[in-house]
């Protein structure tokens, strides 16, 4: 909940831990143990104590010939790639080595259509949520509510209610399943990170009203198409989505019945930030601008002729001029131009053109990608890019990801639960398709970062302070153990379908020798040497500071 942490000034003395972590970084940069020795240790370990089922995972080290022609991965390359992606897998390392950083980034900023392995693409294609039409669903839902409400109390009514509720749960879960499969397998990794980031920035809570029917469409059509586009378009897409309008009650906001909930959060959380130069009066006026912006899955309202031309509708989104306050309004010191829905467009354009918006959004991005306290000079350069490019998100990302300060901060960012869980699964199965995503969802819920599950509109926090308390660390280690100790249910049949295969987490894989082992800290190597089994070895590696910071 401390999303404003970045605005703070740390007044107290520097915690001792800051120095300690820098020292640890130095140690990790030093060429501690020669690769040959490390390989020998790892092989001895594999041969000695592995109790992994099936035995096939205890194999000779993978052939290294194909990598021979490519440049050796430096620590900063591994960390840069880890940060830009949801952690490493072999394919991303190979792409990076082939393309180099600048070309790799350009590729990432232009997502490819065929970014998914065929089985994963087929799995996503088969989900009901992929073929969603929120307007039809909402209309259907409203009709069913009517039927259920008319039923006499009793078991039949309860059963009908449960059927409807189960369907909502399934659609909400399908949205999560799609997100997780893409996060693990898409080669457009930066796109997936940005989908997560913006979803969280414009957070909605699936258990409010009928949002479980809508979150999949929200992610797919309000967020995803705009993740690298212009920020204003992203704001407008969320503003026109029934999920956001219901979540923040703007569907209830009408002339004479003002509800200022969305207006406030639109400025406080989505664009300007607290202290972004708006007043309570601005909140009230923006709420008036937003009157009539709502949701309608049914028939268009009957309007007086002079209002009909002001009526706007696409999908389940509706601007109903009969509910709009047409009085004159001032926002941020400017008169709001327009008459009807174009007032909303002008107001949003005015808000996102504020330097406070450029700075707030840049700081949020930098906090997610760089550091809990991102370098102010870089945030300012990102904000300048934002202002000069009319809020071009790709341009702002380029400024950030190729900056000297970004490089300097590598290795110091604590993974939030989403990054931890996704990167662990990416690493453990390295491109091999998992089948069941429920264990991943359970781990995220247990760590407190379930998708579409943040009740309040501030989204999940972006800083270590909120994820690395005593209780959270022990929980994280338990999940490291679950992931490291076996297939953890990731290959179990889901929803009654048959499983195709099984698997075992392969952490001592080629990726390990190329991109992980060379940079491990001494304490971590000690712990790995003390492991009694492959399962323990996996658990320790996933629990190590080296894996939990990027």
């Amino acid at each position: 909940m401390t999303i404003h942490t970045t605005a703070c000034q740390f007044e107290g003395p520097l915690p001792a831990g800051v120095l300690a972590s820098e020292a640890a970084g130095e140690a990790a940069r030093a060429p501690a143990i020669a690769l040959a020795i490390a390989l020998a240790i790892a092989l001895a370990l594999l041969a000695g104590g592995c109790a992994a089922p099936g035995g096939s995972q205890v194999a000779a080290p993978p052939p290294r010939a194909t990598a021979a022609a490519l440049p050796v991965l430096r620590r900063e390359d591994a960390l840069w790639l880890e940060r830009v992606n949801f952690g490493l897998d072999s394919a991303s390392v190979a792409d990076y080595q082939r393309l180099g950083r600048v070309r790799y980034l350009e590729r990432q900023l232009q997502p490819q259509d065929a970014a998914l392995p065929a089985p994963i693409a087929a799995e996503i294609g088969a989900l009901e949520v992929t073929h969603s039409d929120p307007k039809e669903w909402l209309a259907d839902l409203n009709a069913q509510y009517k039927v259920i409400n008319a039923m006499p109390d009793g078991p039949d009514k309860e059963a009908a209610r449960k059927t409807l509720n189960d369907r909502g749960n399934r659609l909400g879960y399908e949205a999560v399943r799609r997100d997780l499969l893409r996060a693990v397998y898409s080669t457009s990794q930066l796109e997936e990170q940005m989908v997560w980031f913006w979803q969280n920035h414009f957070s909605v809570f699936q258990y409010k009203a009928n949002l479980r029917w809508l979150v999949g469409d929200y992610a797919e059509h309000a967020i995803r198409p705009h993740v690298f586009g212009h920020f204003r378009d992203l704001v407008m897409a969320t503003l026109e989505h029934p999920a956001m309008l219901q979540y923040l009650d703007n569907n209830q906001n009408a002339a004479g019945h003002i509800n200022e909930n969305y207006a406030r959060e639109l400025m406080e959380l989505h664009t300007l930030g607290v202290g972004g130069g708006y007043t309570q009066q601005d909140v009230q006026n923006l709420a008036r601008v937003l009157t009539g912006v709502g949701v309608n899955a049914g028939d268009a309202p009957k309007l007086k002729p002079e209002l009909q031309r002001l009526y706007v509708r696409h999908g389940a989104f509706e601007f109903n001029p009969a509910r709009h306050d047409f009085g004159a309004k001032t926002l941020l010191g400017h008169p709001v131009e327009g008459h009807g829905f174009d007032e909303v467009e002008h107001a949003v354009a005015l808000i996102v053109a504020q330097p406070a918006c450029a700075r707030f959004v840049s700081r949020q991005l930098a906090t997610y990608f760089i550091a809990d306290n991102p370098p102010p000079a870089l945030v300012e350069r990102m904000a300048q890019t934002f202002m000069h490019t009319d809020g071009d998100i790709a341009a702002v990302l380029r400024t950030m990801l190729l900056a000297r300060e970004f490089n300097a901060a590598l290795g110091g960012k604590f993974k939030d639960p989403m990054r931890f869980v996704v990167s662990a699964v990416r690493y453990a199965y390295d491109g091999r398709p998992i089948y069941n995503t429920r264990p991943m969802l359970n781990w995220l819920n247990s760590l407190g970062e379930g998708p579409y599950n943040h009740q309040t509109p501030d989204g999940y926090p972006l800083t270590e302070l909120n994820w690395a308390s005593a209780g959270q660390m022990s929980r994280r280690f338990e999940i490291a153990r679950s992931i490291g100790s076996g297939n953890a249910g990731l290959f179990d049949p889901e929803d009654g379908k048959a499983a195709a295969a099984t698997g075992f987490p392969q952490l001592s894989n080629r990726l390990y020798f190329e991109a992980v082992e060379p940079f491990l800290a001494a304490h971590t190597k000690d712990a790995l040497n003390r492991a009694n089994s492959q399962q323990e070895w996996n658990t320790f590696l996933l629990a190590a500071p080296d894996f939990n910071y990027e």
Partner: protein
Amino acid sequence: MNRRHLLKMGGAALLSAGVSGRLYAAPAGGPRFLLVFLRGGYDSTNLLIPYSSSFYYEARPNIAIAKPQAGSNTGALALDGDWALAPAVRDTIGTLYAQRQVAFIPFAGTDDLTRSHFETQDSIELGQPIGAGRNFRSGFLGRLSDTLVAGSAAAGGSGASDATASISFTDALPLAFEGNATVPNLSLKNVGKPPFDARQAAILSDMYAGHHLQSAVRDGLELRQEVAQTFADEMNAANRNAINTKGFELEAERMGKLMRDKYRIGFIDVGGWDTHVNEGGAEGTLATNLSSLGRGLQVFSQSLGAEWNNTVVVVLSEFGRTFRENGNRGTDHGHGTVYWILGGSVNGGTIRGEQQRLARGTLFQDRDYAVLNDYRSVLGGLFHSLWDLSPTQLGRVFQDAPPVDLKLV
């Protein structure tokens, strides 16, 4: 020696007694303090109902709660000539109030005027003067812990290990507990068997030797082990006497046991109070939440046993809500709110603090309760009573906020 005297004396005894470590028992008789943070801005006007104000009934045509009826066992419970308690907590908090174990402080809150949930929650938890730069590594419960550490060390106690008998019953560590001393956190929703044996836990801890997460990692592994042990024993011992509780009540029961045996300062947060739409009145969304909270607090008081007499619970929220209902039978973000003070030895059965008549003309900015009782001064006064803190020590906890003694204990 009366109960109240005992509660105050416990503080002095504690500071000199010394405890062997944070994961070991706090001394019997030491004061205990639990902060319950209602996140979302609960509608205090429908908890503590200003039923003598005709303006209340005008301002809330759909969601006002009917006046208490003399002699009735249901509906709102009259506390005095002006205030009544919501029907939803009549049987729980109302009972404690009748036993003089609950006091309310209306017109309480902060001078933060952002009306932002997140901003105001942060500013309350940090407890720093508004307007200066914020230090997000310093919450007021963290500073209280640190101050008790220092006081204990000065009195010949064991210092750091003493005053860290603090715990947050949450998944994440709240800002309120940020400070020099690391405070462990653990949600008590599930307390199953820990997955690591001693050897594995040691190896995991060793990986973080010298790291700034070293103590968080060590505490997390230890606490998990200890809590599992505590509740495994109790389940074996007390099955014949088991209380069938669930949800917040179950957590509250576990909190009570841990605070009875091991911890002095605790924190829990409860969400779901942001009632912009269809808030309900005597029944409905808010009433359901209040009812669950009331039952939980009652169970908490019971599971503390005799230590309930040494315990003070403060229930607060970031702000109140608009005095008038909005267009959606709900309420929007307001300002002043009502704090609850509970405990076996509190001066309960009263409404405390500065008050004013509630009428159209007295609303703050024509929409909210004013704040007449600054939370930092009120809590400072309470901490002074509980732990006998000096002005200098109190100044460390709440800088530039002179304590106000509302005679709460």
